């Protein structure tokens, strides 16, 4: 009897907790979309101040270059090595350039660049905006009649949105070079075959364009999540810390989930 009562109480608590979590989730989703609307409505005015966007492109994009270049190179080298070991069994090692390029431009370029972007630039954006909120800098701007959404958030949003597709392209280019160093330089694949097969098999309108579309979508989502988490963070050190973690986790999950959906739409048949 007592056990039944305890089970009932526990069930009621679990249901209440579930309901609370669901309400919290939908509230945050609503606030995120309202912020996105504010950002979209403020875009025309923000575009009139390109110097603010350029400064943020430097912070978000240029400073992410090193990790993108190095990661792209290593990913390409691994692709070259693994691809060669598989293809050589079938006598098809001349197709290494095609395999490396297609893997990069269709999948790994946009996805890995977005994941690296979330870890390097997204977390930095969230922490910066969260700390500006914690130290009342955003409130001070509001009291100076300066809209922090237009002055702080939109330039960062646009910088991230423009930067990620470029970073993904650079990642893919470095990966192709990495595959070349390993495949042609170390394993002896014919240089002409590496480039000509790639040129013949990689179709710009399908493979490259779809990769670009993916990276644009990932850029939009990654920077939206990063900015929202920072702006919505509780103004405490713990709040900013949790928001930064959430940015990386949510962006990674969103990018991987969206990648499946986009791949299914683009290449699903």
């Amino acid at each position, binding site marked *: 009897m007592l056990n039944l009562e305890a089970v009932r109480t526990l069930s009621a608590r679990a249901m209440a907790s579930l309901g609370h979590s669901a309400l919290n989730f939908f509230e945050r989703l609503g606030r995120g979309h309202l912020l996105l609307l504010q950002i979209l409505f403020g875009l025309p005015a923000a575009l009139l101040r390109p110097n603010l966007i350029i400064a943020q492109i430097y912070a978000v994009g240029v400073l992410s270059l090193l990790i993108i270049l190095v990661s792209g190179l290593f990913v390409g080298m691994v692709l070259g090595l693994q691809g060669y070991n598989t293809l050589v069994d079938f006598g098809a090692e001349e197709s290494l350039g095609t395999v490396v390029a297609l893997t990069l431009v269709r999948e790994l370029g946009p996805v890995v660049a977005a994941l690296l972007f979330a870890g390097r630039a997204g977390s930095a954006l969230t922490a910066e905006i969260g700390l500006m909120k914690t*130290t009342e800098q955003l409130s001070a701007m509001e*009291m100076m*009649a300066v809209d922090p959404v237009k002055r702080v958030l939109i330039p960062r949003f646009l910088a991230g949105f423009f930067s990620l597709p470029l970073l993904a392209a650079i990642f893919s280019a470095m990966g192709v070079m990495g595959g070349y160093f390993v495949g042609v330089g170390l394993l002896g694949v014919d240089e002409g075959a590496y480039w000509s097969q790639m040129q013949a098999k990689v179709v710009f309108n399908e493979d490259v364009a779809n990769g670009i579309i993916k990276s644009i979508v990932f850029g939009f989502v990654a920077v939206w999540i990063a900015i929202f988490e920072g702006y919505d963070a509780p103004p405490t050190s713990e709040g900013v810390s949790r928001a930064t973690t959430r940015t990386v986790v949510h962006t990674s999950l969103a990018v991987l989930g969206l990648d499946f959906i986009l791949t299914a739409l683009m290449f699903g048949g």
Partner: protein
Amino acid sequence: MTESRAEANDEKIVVRVRDLHFSRSGRAIFDGIDIDVARGKITAIMGPSGTGKTTLLKLIGGQLRPEAGTIHIEGENVHALSRRRLYKLRRKMSLLFQSGALLTDISVFDNVAFPLREHTRLPESMIRSLVLTKLEAVGLRGASALMPSELSGGMSRRVALARAIALDPMLVMYDEPFAGQDPISMGVLLELISKLNRALGMTSIIVSHDINETAAIADFIYLLANGKVVASGTPQQLKVSKSAWADQFMHGLPDGPVPFHFPAQPYDKELLDAQS
């Protein structure tokens, strides 16, 4: 005749708070307060910690919305304004945050220049002259190239003050301007606030715990407690007031209408409960 007298009276009042109600997490912060801030005067809002003094400044600035009641600034109902008109009104006022709230990624000079660059189309040479004038007024012209992280707490607040007066506002609100200041910085800030108010013809609202310092420059004081205005008057009136609230607060008595202890169940009961 009566109407013109009322209008003349209205012109003397910059901020008019009426029947203000505001609560947070179910706790009433304000339970119907009325406050008038007279033009050209220094009005102090005082009271024990947690009475919502900073919240009141945020309500006046339109950053928070009351549950009931109105706040008029220069005759405009702050919370009935559109966003555009609210931002226009905010150009005529400024808030000096307790932390200073300087923008940490730009220098002292750029912090003071920030509102000028955002709201005016003045040439850079003119902005430079204005910024140096404001920094000279707070004694920090020599620190214009420093970054906010290189400033002491007192210097940060003086830079924030220079930024607050950059657009020559008609209303300046100071949130705990003397908190954590050494005696020299406190003296400098006191003189600055008083001097700026007189020289620039501004109206000031000071939120503070520091009774002696605030009473030295305030023209009128409101004492807040339990969500209400419990006493008001000039500093001299409050010092000799027979109100128990005013007596406890103005003389720093440990117990009185404002209890030392946060509401809790009886001490002995809680100890016994813990043992059992």
